[in-house]
């Protein structure tokens, strides 16, 4: 599903943000990407979203070589992803329903499909009853659920979550992680960037550790080595 071959990224003269990254993530996997601040995790996410171009190397997502994706086809390419952020990034002037429907409207979905799909996905994240609430009326955990609903509503193949529990207390963080696990079990590839090592250790999923732009550990490879 996602393949990076010798990918490097330098912003300007100096230490590269990512250096010779080789990585393979299969369809339906649940992967944690961990590392300190400035280790290159965000750069990796931005490369996957084609917000940045690699200085060297090849990125293949869903059988598409990103070098060959033309500028005008980037929007369509990005519809492979659902994205969740630490700070939720909900539209404050719109209620829960409209925040989720927004994602469908921008891809040109019909009103009929929007009316059908949005309640389904809100029900899935446990917020069906709060569809009229505005973001400021919700707890942090609920806001993140809305963000996840928005990321999922277009049925992406890959869900990218950048520090999804960073602004949440322990209980809410676990609920969000359980939700992400459920989503993964339904077949969506989930990539979670996080600092929360407690969650990472408890969930026992594949963990890719990046330090100073280099992958220093990949639990998947370790398992393969052990096998």
């Amino acid at each position, binding site marked *: 599903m996602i393949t990076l071959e010798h990918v490097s990224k330098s912003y300007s003269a100096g230490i590269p943000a990512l250096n010779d990254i080789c990585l393979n993530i299969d369809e339906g996997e649940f992967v944690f990407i961990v590392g300190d601040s400035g280790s290159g995790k965000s750069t990796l996410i931005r490369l996957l979203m084609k917000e940045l171009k690699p200085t060297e190397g090849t990125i293949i997502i869903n059988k598409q070589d990103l070098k060959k994706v033309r500028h005008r086809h980037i*929007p369509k*390419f*990005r519809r492979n992803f659902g994205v969740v952020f630490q700070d939720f*990034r909900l539209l404050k002037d719109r209620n829960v329903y409209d925040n989720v429907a927004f994602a469908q*409207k*921008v*891809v*040109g979905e019909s009103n009929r499909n929007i009316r059908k799909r949005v309640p389904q996905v809100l029900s899935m994240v446990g917020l069906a009853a709060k569809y009229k609430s505005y973001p400021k009326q919700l707890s942090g955990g609920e806001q993140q659920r809305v963000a996840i609903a928005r990321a999922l509503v277009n049925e992406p193949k890959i869900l990218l979550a950048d520090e999804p529990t960073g602004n949440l207390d322990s209980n809410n963080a676990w609920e969000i992680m359980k939700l992400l696990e459920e989503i993964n079990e339904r077949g969506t590839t989930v990539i979670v960037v996080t600092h929360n090592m407690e969650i990472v250790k408890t969930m026992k999923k594949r963990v890719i550790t990046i330090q100073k732009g280099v992958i220093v550990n990949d639990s998947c490879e370790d398992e393969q080595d052990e096998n």
Partner: protein
Amino acid sequence: MRINTFFYSIRQGIRNIGRNKMFSFISIATMSACIFMFGIFYIIVTNFNAMIENAEKSVAITVFFESGISDERLEEIGQELYRRPEVADCVFVSKEEAWEYVKENYFEGREDLAAAFEGDNPVANSEHYEIYLSDVSMQDALVSYIETMDGVREVHQSAKIANTLTDFNRLISYVSAGIILILLAVAVFLISNTVSVGISARKEEIAIMKLIGATDFLVRTPFVIEGMIIGLIGAFIPLALLYVMYEKIVEYIAGQFQFIGTILVFVSAEELFHTLVPIAVILGVGIGFIGSRLTVHRHLRV
């Protein structure tokens, strides 16, 4: 483009105006001022043109002949003048007709005095051609030409009013073109500014849209529509004002300056606005489109 996307863009464009009230108001006000000035100048220039046209119709060059000129030569001169492109009409006035005109205009009610001249036409040497021009600006050249013709004694011209109107109209056209250009530049700048403010206010929303997979078209179009709607409103407000004002002003001027009523010929409001409305709407929407499109391209590299 899907129909949903089209309506979504229009709705967002309208909402942008609401979200950005202050700058939208300033832009609409500037656009209105710009179109209002344009409308005023357009109305003045159009009316002056109508007055000139009317004056041209009544302006005549009068050509008198040397005494004893043959009828054949008179006929030749008439034919030659009639064939000239700047001549709209060429009318021969015989000495008898000239005397009748004098009697009607100067001896009205004093027929006894006119009768004293019976049998002795005092304007016997006044047979002439009256030449009406299609383009009054050619008058001087035509007069110079006629003066060189064989058998012509004297040429009278009476185009001072038309010439003055033509010169004045030209002056107004230049001044108005200059002022309108400045106002248009200000309007483009202000619309661009309004759209920039809207883009900054919605930076986060735009970022989310891009990540979700919104096309360049969908991100940009609401801002362009916002500019076009500002332009459209900015065109209709002054058009309505001008329409209400025009007939009242025409009525007032006609009442106050009755003594030059033959010169003051105003174009009807219907005729005037039949042309002015589409021009003003195209101008307003066009400026809105250009101002917003330039800004969107500068600030929204999707």
